[in-house]
């Protein structure tokens, strides 16, 4: 059984149909990169997967459970899906450690001691154990983004969604974040990324999904697809970004 299954997904904003029937299934442990021009619907697809956007029609199943706003509370959903944003969205009024501890304590009801121990472990995983008591504003963008990853991991989600998580970073900071993702992938984490990092998609990803005008235009094994694109649209896209 697939971990994530999307079937005939449709989504419109007003008259603008952004997703025109998406079918996609993703196995546990896969690293899937969603690529495409801006406006192709890739971010919307990602945001539908954790119900930041509600879909108009179609089915999304995660770990065998159907997503729909009435039955899936944010708390329940957070057990399955974690998310990291382009702009980090750390809570500026909380320290790094508190950022990571908040949801386990408030949503899961963990004790502070346990949450702190877990937070230290996750921060160590992203290489920021020493920043536990720092404030977000004292960190570089790359460090903030790694804290955001640790914050998501602290809830042990089955899938981690990454929405252009390196796009807001200075070029020299991108590598640190990608290394963390690579390590997560090697540990068997299921990752779904919207990304412009073609090198990462090819070297670390298992699969690439190319979206074009609200549809999945082409998908397949990462290395094959990026070196031998079949459709002219993907060829054009690849030559434009490389």
């Amino acid at each position, binding site marked *: 059984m697939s971990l994530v299954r999307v079937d005939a997904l449709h989504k419109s904003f007003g008259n603008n149909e952004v997703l025109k029937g998406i079918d996609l299934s993703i196995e546990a442990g896969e690293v899937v990169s969603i690529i495409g021009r801006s406006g192709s619907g890739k971010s919307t697809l990602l945001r539908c997967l954790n119900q930041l956007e509600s879909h108009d029609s179609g089915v999304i199943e995660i770990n065998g459970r159907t997503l729909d706003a009435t039955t899936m509370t944010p708390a329940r959903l957070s057990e399955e*899906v974690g998310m990291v944003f382009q702009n980090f969205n750390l809570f500026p009024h909380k320290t790094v450690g508190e950022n990571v501890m908040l949801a386990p304590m408030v949503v899961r009801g963990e004790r502070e001691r346990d949450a702190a121990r877990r937070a230290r472990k996750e921060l160590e995983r992203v290489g920021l154990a020493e920043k536990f008591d720092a404030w977000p504003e004292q960190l570089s963008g790359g460090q903030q983004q790694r804290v955001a990853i640790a914050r998501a991991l602290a809830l042990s989600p089955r899938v981690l969604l990454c929405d252009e998580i390196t796009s807001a970073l200075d070029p020299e900071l991108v590598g640190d974040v990608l290394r963390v993702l690579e390590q997560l992938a090697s540990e068997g984490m299921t990752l779904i990324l919207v990304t412009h990092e073609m090198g990462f998609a090819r070297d670390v990803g298992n699969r690439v999904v190319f979206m074009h005008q609200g549809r999945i235009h082409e998908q397949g094994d990462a290395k094959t697809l990026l070196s031998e694109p079949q459709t002219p649209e993907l060829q054009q896209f690849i030559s434009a970004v490389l």
Partner: protein
Amino acid sequence: MTDFTLWDIVRNLLLAMRWTVALSLIAFAGGGLVGLALTVLRLSPAAWVRRLVALYIELFQGTPLLMQLFLAYFGVAALGVDISAWTAATIALVLFTSAFLCDIWHGCVRAIPVGQWQAARVLGLDRLRTLRHVVLPQALRIAIAPTVGFSVQVIKGTALASVIGFAELTRTGTMLNNATFQPFTIFAFVALGYFLLCYPLSLYARYLEKRLNVAGSR
């Protein structure tokens, strides 16, 4: 008429100032409580609730405070309930204050980036927990300076209670003037009284605002 020395005037005004302070404190505390409830209501998912709160604010911000005082005074009296100027002034000022504070606080909540709401949501926090742990603590920080600033408006607003006969600072000034015919001195002292109450608060609000701008978002 010559019975009043300057000290008599000042002493009477100082005594009356207690009532200005008391009315201000009650209006601010009561208005703060009602305003907080309204702020939470205004964040309700139900559109009609939000619209109702917006209408409430519009009504109080779009009409003269003096009229609100008259309506509280004569409106309750028309219901057949005997109402003192003190009660009427309290009711009107609490409602007036709540509308403005709700507007200020709602603006502060809206100033929190939508990414904060989304981040809390994907971490599994529901609406109330998001408000409690993520949004309100941040909104509170930016709300303090304008809230202190608005307290000055409340103090000045209490002067209008004099019109319906509540003997606070302004009313006492008018009565003293009727007895002594020293309008220049008396109203200068009345103004000074308000200035002594309001100016420190204005300064404090400005200081808070400056400190917030320097400290950044934390």
